[in-house]
């Protein structure tokens, strides 16, 4: 965080007392060294709240105690990982985004004979299933490979099963309808008493994998990258890294979709054309210019 010039720094510093700040640094450093999860460039305010929550839940007096626990108890790391990765998502979240994608982006994708879409930070997979259904309805799913990645293996496992609680399905159905879906949503899943399962026809073209935006590099070239409401938890250094990664991973004229409340870091604004500013859908410009500013 040494090159940090942004105003929120003062908030952090005013709220965090120095000791707590050091402890958090140690905790994050320890997690990174032992488990390889790099939270060092996550926003402190959010991390701090979640660490405090976990401390309260575990009845631990200090963050150092938490550090000790996590260093010696690998299973506790999973708990902490779940705490740190906010897995809030739903199908067709921000219906206007999917509606816009269907109406504006899909026509632009039709000419491609083969499509690769990357859902970075897919969490429990709601978004990637939503996208797969959308592409299925638009007749694009057969030639599309969807890559859904998250750093949290547990949620990836969950996402892989394509299993969602029945008690969330009504709102998913409503979202689907609002997002411009006009077929029978019920045709895509089967149920048992507690869960709905998406049919293989939908999930066959989805590849789930663990991938950490903070540490891993690119693994393919994609026509579309969606990374919605993930970067808000990162500081600018990490955001910079991730935007760089995305820019490298996009094909010429590829599409980048980010969360409705997020903004593209200004150094990258020149590399993209704002296709749909309201929905935060950008298109990579043809000119290949240097992104590396670091």
């Amino acid at each position, binding site marked *: 965080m040494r090159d940090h*010039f942004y105003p929120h720094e003062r908030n952090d510093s005013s709220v965090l007392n120095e000791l707590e700040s050091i402890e958090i640094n140690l905790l994050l450093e320890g997690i990174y060294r032992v488990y390889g999860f790099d939270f060092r460039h996550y926003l402190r305010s959010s991390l701090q709240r979640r660490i405090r929550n976990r401390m309260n839940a575990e009845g631990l007096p200090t963050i150092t105690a938490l550090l000790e626990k996590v260093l010696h108890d690998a299973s506790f790391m999973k708990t902490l990982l779940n705490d740190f990765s*906010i897995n809030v998502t739903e199908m067709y979240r921000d219906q206007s985004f999917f509606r816009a994608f269907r109406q504006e982006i899909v026509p632009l994708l039709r000419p491609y004979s083969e499509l690769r879409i990357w859902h970075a930070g897919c969490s429990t997979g709601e978004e990637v299933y939503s996208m797969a259904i959308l592409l299925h309805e638009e007749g694009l799913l057969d030639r599309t490979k969807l890559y859904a990645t998250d750093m949290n293996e547990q949620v990836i496992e969950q996402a892989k099963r394509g299993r969602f609680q029945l008690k969330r399905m*009504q709102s998913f159905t409503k979202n689907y309808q609002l997002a411009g879906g006009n077929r029978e949503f019920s045709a895509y899943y089967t149920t048992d008493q507690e869960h709905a399962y998406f049919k293989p026809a939908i999930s066959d073209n989805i590849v789930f994998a663990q991938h950490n935006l903070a540490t891993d590099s690119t693994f393919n070239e994609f026509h579309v990258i969606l990374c919605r409401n993930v970067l808000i938890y990162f500081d600018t250094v990490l955001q910079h890294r991730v935007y760089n990664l995305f820019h490298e991973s996009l094909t010429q004229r590829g599409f980048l979709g980010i969360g409705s409340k997020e903004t593209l870091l200004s150094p990258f604004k020149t590399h993209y054309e704002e296709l749909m500013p309201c929905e935060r859908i950008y298109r990579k410009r043809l000119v290949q210019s240097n992104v590396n500013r670091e």
Partner: protein
Amino acid sequence: MLTKLKFTIRSKIAIGYFLIICCLGASIVIVTDRMAALQDEVAAMTSLDIEAHHSIAAVRFDAVSMENGQRGYLLTGEEDYLEAYNTGKTQWEVNYNSLYTYLSDNPNTHRELEEVKFAIQSWVKEVAEPTIEMKRNGDEEALSAFLQANSSKPSINDLPEKFESLRDKEIQSTKLRILELENRNRLLTLSIYILLFVVTIIAFIIVAFVSGLIVRTIKQVSNTITNIASAGGDLTTRIQVKTNDEIRDLGEATNKLLASLESQNWIQSRVAEVATMNQGISDLPTLAQSFLSKVAPMIGASYGVFYIRKESHEGQRLVRIAAYASQGEEGGRSSFKIGEGLVGQSAQDKRFFLLNQMPEHHAVITTGLGQTVPQSILIVPIEYEGKVEAVVEFASIESFTSEHLKLLEEIAQDFGIAVINVAGRMEVERLLSESQMLTEELQAQTEELQTQSEELQMQQEEMRMTTEHLEEQNLYAQQKTKELEKTKRELEDYSARLKQSSEYKTNFLANMSHELRTPLNSILILSQLLSDNDNGTLTEDEQGYAKVIYASGNDLLKLIDDILDLSKIEAGKAVLNIDEVNLTEIPELIRLSFDHVAENKGLPFHIHMESGLPAIWHTDGQRLQQIIKNLLSNAFKFTEQGSVTMRLDWASPIEVDQWLPMYSGERVLAVSVTDTGIGIPLNKQQLIFEAFQQVDGKTNRQYGGTGLGLSISNEFAKLLDGNIALSSTPNEGSCFTLYLPNLLNGRRHSVQQAQLEAAASIEEDSHVLMGWEQADSNSSAAARAINGHEELLFKGKRVLLAEDDARNVYALVKALENKGMDVIVAGNGKRCMELLHADPEIDLILMDIMMPVMDGFETMKAIRELPQLRNMPIIALTAKAMKSDRDKCLEAGASDYISKPLQMDQLFSLMRVWLTKQVGQS
């Protein structure tokens, strides 16, 4: 030029006027002089004239008085007369001399004058003097003689004539003079005019020259100004004035104005440039960087650093966020406290610092070729609302000009707002993402809380249940004996009733069988007799009819047998006789039945038996035969050419795992029947076996009796704990394989249980004949047992079905009731509303769209208008492929939709979703 004397417009005009007045004065002097001379001449001439006249008159008078004196004396001799003569004699010469002077300039008169003089003198000398002398002497005679000889003597008498001629001459000369004067006078007048004319011309020339001098320069100036104006304000043009006067002053003043305007303009355009650059930048480092890259070249700075004020826990600091041509980290300190160093001081005092002549060791400007020390350093604070927001430092190899300073001042004024704006925007963006983050976290926490509270509720529920359970157990324990006794009695009772009912049923079936077979048998026998036509009384056609009757009757009989078989199975009456079956006998038995069929159809019929098979197999031999026969008759029925093959073999472990997982790892018999018939398309394959379970028997009928036969075979196979697999390709043939386990003792418990259940369901249901339709097959019963929870989800749920088609209503009601739901049926929308008004305690509504009286759309709208039913799940049943209908459904208020013909699995999925209490619902 500056030393040159100033020649002002005033002096120009004054000199002009002066010159004109001079000319006028000179001309007046000349004229007056000329006139005075003329006048003098006239006066002189006049006085000369008068004098001359006087003198002439005096001389004449003298001459006359001398003559008179002489004469008097001569006459009288009196001396008195002589006196007059003497006076005349002295006087006339004086007078003559003056006359002579008067007339001396007139040579014409000289002769006359000389003649007069001579006449007088000669008279005096020759006449007067001698006569007087003679008188005095008294010489009278001489005198008289003298007087007598007068004629030759000079006389004075012709003197007046002489004078007259002198006078004439004199007048004449005067007249000449006057003429001359007049000429000169005329000349003078002319010369006055000429002079006037000349003076006027000179005046004009002067005026033209002077005004030209003034107007030309003014025009030049005004032209230059017009040019500047018309050239869109090209302020680089300057006014050139060659004269050294007020116009030059004006020009210089204008030039000064232009220069100041140009510099102002330069500043303004630079300020505007900087201001436009500010737009669209949303973070401070970029803003600062572009500010430096923009401003530094403007002011010729070769080095620049941008510090921004930051609040930190140590107080306010100025932190470097951008640099221009910097030397990396060493190129200037990264931060200052307020008041620290000149940068800090500048922020504190809000003033500029301009330093010139830097010492050697000051920051250096590096180029590719070397380093130099800056000449001048400029530190500029950027303020907003009286607060310094940023400080910029520039260094240059040259000195900064006042223009640069002015420019920076201007820019600094506006730039403060830009900095504040961008900082504000960044803050807003940060807050926005923070809020988003908080929202997400909140959501996550809410969900967590929700889960926790749900867990808590469940725990509570569990505890409550446990308590209740304990109480119940207590109670139960007390009543246990009683209950047991009662149960025992009831069981006995039930068993008796079951037996009775079973007996009734058996009787009924036996009767049925008898009652149906008896007439059918007679028909068969009679029709066969007829078709034999032993008497030869029937025509060929009639014989054919009889054969048809016979064949149809046979089919009917087989059908009845099948139905009875099936109902027996369903009723649990299909008693199995598990015994040792000699497998080696089977081919023999089958050949007995089918060889002739094969012969009739002209098809080769092969039976293969694997050599390693045991001779004895534990199963129900009769049922086994029935299954094989069914499969074979089916095969022959649909095969026109090729062959039919039956094969007895071991099932491979994979097949066992797939078809009989219960017997995984054991040896299983596989009996396959392969034909080369029409085959069964893939989508129909499942139907052959599953059609029965799906209530709808219609599809089966198109396969005729064999279809039923297959179903029965399937049921039998399941009774025997076996299974039938089908693989088929249309137009190439089918292969049915029966997998049969070796049923040693105790192996059939699952079968028996299924049978029992089936029996029980029949017991509950009064539709005995529909038994096979009502009761689930073994497998679905088993499925039901597995999904025990599902029953909980559906059990007791009240579903309102709005549908007018009786067949659909019937099928749906049956299906839903099987799942344990209560179904209320409304034949149309109006009825539906009535029912809802009477009893709104409904869990879910299934709404057909096409209904009489009041259709689905209207009904859904009406339902949604009732506040208490706003959240009621309504599933619309729409016709397939009508997209517009779906949109209309959602518009009308449907929660979801499903298209007809209904896929029951999908419907149940949908109902599970809409019957499950949702997250966040109370």
